[in-house]
């Protein structure tokens, strides 16, 4: 967009957020605008900072477990997974295979739930009210399955160092199989309702194009990166847990626009279903928890562990000093990097496009602020 004199003279500020329907939580985007054109959007963070990293330093490692679920509450199990795997790597704990399989199944279920919620919320940003109810309908089935085995519906605390807090039963396997079958049929409905809709395509195609170079510069990860055509997925590139045993693809987009990011997420849900099915078929018998001392002493030195959360690469970096408390725990969350490119991406665009871009990044603000 050409910046004319008129636009220069008629600049004004607009506070989008912290209470705004489409900033999803408590993000403030300070918009410098001229008419409906956004000249300079600045994300302002810190409205929901809760000192999670500091809390990790002040208690034994198990005490931080519940906190991990409260950073990204939409997709909490990968956060559990990253943390327990980090401590297991540091303390040298072996995990029984059955536990690893169940971790993968539940994490992938949680990923689908997260993507469904995102799909609905994104369409809500674009002004369609119905898809979110469809998404919630499907997500409800996942939450029911997870509630039966973990005891909670959103902020799970299910994994333990060396395994799981409890085993799953046949009912879980059966319910998950039923869900996989049901979900396969539901993609057709989403395609008819959303993906084929001409208004939806017009609102997302060629909007917010993230080039591969730009994605690398900002450290964008997850579906947002894959939308730009870079097939980087922690599950494939730095495999952890039992992911190497499964056959699944990493869907990538072409142009890096909002539509590609949408398509990548939808296709990822299908891939997650594939992983779940394979894992259910091969679910081994055996214990779900290894013998672990009550008080885990962390040997001095540092350690890193990365997992693929629903929003991108989540990595925990730990420095230990020989006690049972971490000296420092740094959490690298995907949404922070994903948000950081907003300013470069959306100078000189229309306000509705900004909403579309912001939605397509699938931000969870409590994860950014921690």
């Amino acid at each position: 967009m050409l910046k004319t004199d008129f636009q220069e003279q008629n600049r004004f500020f607009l506070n989008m957020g912290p209470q705004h329907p489409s900033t999803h939580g408590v993000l403030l985007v300070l918009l410098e605008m001229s008419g409906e054109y956004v000249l300079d959007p600045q994300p302002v963070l810190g409205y929901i900072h809760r000192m999670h990293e500091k809390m990790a330093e002040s208690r034994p490692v198990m005490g931080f477990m519940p906190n991990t679920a409260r950073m990204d509450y939409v997709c909490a199990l990968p956060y559990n997974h990253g943390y327990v795997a980090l401590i297991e790597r540091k303390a040298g704990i072996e995990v029984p295979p059955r536990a690893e399989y169940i971790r993968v199944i539940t994490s992938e279920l949680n990923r689908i739930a997260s993507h469904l919620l995102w799909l609905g919320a994104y369409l809500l940003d674009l002004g369609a009210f119905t898809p979110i109810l469809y998404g919630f309908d499907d997500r409800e089935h996942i939450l029911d399955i997870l509630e039966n085995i973990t005891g909670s519906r959103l902020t799970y605390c299910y994994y333990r160092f060396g395994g799981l807090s409890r085993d799953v039963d046949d009912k879980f396997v059966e319910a998950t199989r039923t869900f996989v079958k049901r979900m396969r049929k539901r993609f057709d409905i989403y395609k008819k309702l959303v993906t084929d809709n001409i208004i939806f395509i017009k609102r997302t195609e060629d909007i917010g194009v993230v080039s591969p170079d730009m994605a690398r510069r900002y450290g964008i990860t997850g579906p947002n990166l894959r939308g730009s055509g870079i097939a980087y997925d922690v599950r494939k590139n730095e495999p952890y847990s039992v992911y190497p045993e499964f056959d699944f693809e990493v869907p990538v987009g072409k142009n890096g626009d909002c539509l590609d990011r949408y398509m990548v997420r939808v296709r990822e849900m299908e891939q997650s279903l594939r992983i779940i099915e394979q894992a259910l078929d091969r679910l081994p018998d055996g214990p779900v928890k290894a013998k672990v001392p009550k008080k885990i002493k962390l040997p001095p030195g540092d350690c890193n562990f990365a997992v693929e959360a629903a929003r991108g690469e989540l990595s925990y970096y730990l420095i230990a000093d020989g006690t049972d408390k971490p000296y420092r725990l740094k959490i690298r969350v995907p949404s922070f990097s994903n948000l950081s490119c907003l300013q470069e991406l959306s100078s000189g665009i229309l306000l509705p496009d900004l909403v579309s871009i912001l939605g397509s990044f699938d931000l969870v603000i409590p994860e950014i602020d921690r």
Partner: protein
Amino acid sequence: METISILPPELIRMFIAVIVIITFLFLNGIMMGYAERKIAGHVQRRPGPMEVGFHGILQMIVDGVKLLAKELIIPINVDRNLFRIAPLLSFTPVILPLLVIPFSEKLQARDLNLGLLLIVTMGSINVMALLVGGWGSNNKYSMFGAMRAVAQCIAYEIPILLSMLAVILMTNTFSLKGIVGAQENIWFIVLQPIAFLIYIISGVAETNRAPFDLPEAESELTAGFHTEYSGMGFSLFFLAEYTNMFIVASVATVLFLGGWHGPPLPYGEYLGIVWFFLKVYFLLFLMIMVRWTYPRVRFDQLMNFAWKYLIPFALVNLFITAVVVKL
């Protein structure tokens, strides 16, 4: 009795008509609100309101009482006069068009020979209300909503007028009764399908309904021009929206769907209202279904659609009609 007989009977007739219409208008608002929530519920695979009365049928009455009882909050920095006038300005003009709409052959408050023009004029005043409300609120989001409303209504009034003119060329009258009378044998939707389509699309845009609900786009502008309104101020905007929808659907019925015409009924000159209402509420049902299915268009797409597609097509359609009629 003495005083009544002194008054001219026409005046009494008008007085009764206005009271009936205002009553109907509130009733329509209640029915439409309930229908919208129930249809939205079923579209979204949930039951919708279920608690108050049988299948939640009294829900809107309860909500109406709640809105009446609520305080009308006037923020500190608003222009108090404009802020108060806007809801009234939005509500008052929607009563007048109903006076000239022929519900059946005998049920019409007043048959003006320029009835259609009155409806179009009153429709334009509604924009003033949105502008006044948005400006008076002294809120940037409201201001955005108001600006969008003005641009949108100006853009979409032209195709509305052009599509109406195509019908008027065929009937040679602006009187709604005359237009319906001319459709006794064949409805104009058959002769003017393009004009009908253009009218319906522009009508949805004119009433600020999704997918053209940009003045109140809540994911962008929180609530657009009525961000600052509460209580009765809000509900008057809300009533005006539903009445506007009703007017757009009635005019579509009159111009294209043959008004009160349908399979003959006993007392046809009065009971034609049944066919009229069936057609109107069918159109309204379509409008509600569209709202709960489609995402919102972007503002420049909306304007492009009006100026690049609707207006040229309406002009061509008008030209062809003129040539065919006058040959």
